[in-house]
């Protein structure tokens, strides 16, 4: 029995459909892979995705448990009049496989609800007298000897921020991140809500 072929059955598009599909997939891959690589490269030094930590709760991050204890305002002489100094205190408990020197690479900042951020005074420019170590993994103890966080034992440290006056300190959220090439997961950082 003779059948009448449909007009488009032998069209060029139909005959080349596998090649076309392959070219489409290859094109998409060629666009997506460099984008993904660039995004990951950027995320290694720029925290992009927050891990929100509820007030008073601790969270696992970078082989340790992290918890925000409190944020207090500190009176520091010689500060500019339109600014206030806040000190955030954290507790960290290292896992058995963590390294204190690695945690020393942590960086901190504090953010408001609109996304504005202020950095931790890691260079001590604000001349705040610390009552706790300023680093996540080590600090100076008695006799100026270096002390380090130990696995399983709570390690308390504090970070200092200069923010504008007029902001309710309670609404600000301290943040911690490790922006180094080998940190995982790439681009994630901790954002703590403050205890009441």
């Amino acid at each position, binding site marked *: 029995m003779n059948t009448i072929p449909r007009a488009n059955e032998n069209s060029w598009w139909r005959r080349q459909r596998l090649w076309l599909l392959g070219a489409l997939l290859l094109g998409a891959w060629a666009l997506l892979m460099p984008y993904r690589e660039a995004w990951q490269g950027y995320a290694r030094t720029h925290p992009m995705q927050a891990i929100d930590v509820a007030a008073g709760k601790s969270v696992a991050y970078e082989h340790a448990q992290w918890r925000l204890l409190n944020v207090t305002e500190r009176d520091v002489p010689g500060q500019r009049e339109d600014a206030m100094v806040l000190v955030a205190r954290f507790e960290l408990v290292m896992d058995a496989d963590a390294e204190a020197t690695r945690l020393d690479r942590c960086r901190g900042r504090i953010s408001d609800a609109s996304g*504005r*951020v*202020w950095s931790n005074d890691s260079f001590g420019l604000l001349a705040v007298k610390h009552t706790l170590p300023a680093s996540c993994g080590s600090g100076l103890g008695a006799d100026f000897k270096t002390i380090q966080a130990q696995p399983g034992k709570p390690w308390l440290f504090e970070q200092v921020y200069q*923010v*504008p006056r007029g902001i309710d300190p309670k609404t600000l959220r301290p943040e911690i991140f490790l922006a180094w090439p080998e940190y995982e997961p790439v681009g994630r950082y901790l954002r703590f809500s403050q205890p009441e």
Partner: protein
Amino acid sequence: MRWPGWRSLLWVTAGLILIVALRKGELDYAGKLAPLATPGELKQRIVARNFALTVDGFRLAHAYRIAGADAQAAPRVLSTPGVWVSVVLKLEALREPGLLNARIRTRDGSIYQANGDARPRARGVNLSGVEVAPGLPATGAFFFEMPPAELPGAHLQVYWGGLTPTDMDSLIDVDLGTGARSSDALAAQTVAEIDLRP
């Protein structure tokens, strides 16, 4: 061998035209790395992606008088083979803390980078190396040394970061308003000395 039909040739030709057009429209290396520029004028608050500034004006001087190295040391006079240009402005960070740098771009495209914080050493005035944070603006001046003949048509350019490929961001370009003025008129405006001591 079967020759390709006219339709195939048409597709190939269209493809080639597209490739050539895209290649020609592609930015060159410098263009790809160029910061996002926002133009503006004196006395106007100019907002870029992550910072804003207001340029109050500029002053020209042959020398600065600055404090000595310590409280007991006599004041020093800092002169230049060209002319000192101090651009007075207010800097605001909008999203995150950071360093802003400045340069002057002349009519012929020459670039004069702002001096560092050691020339002149004027704490609280020289904005070079001063970090700005959201809600905590910085006021002061950027200082430049340049030939007076280059001043007509000069633009101030303030940018976030270091203009390197890894930290390229936004740039604000401010016309200093010297385009219509002659070198002689600007020379007449140049004072012998400005005292930068606190």
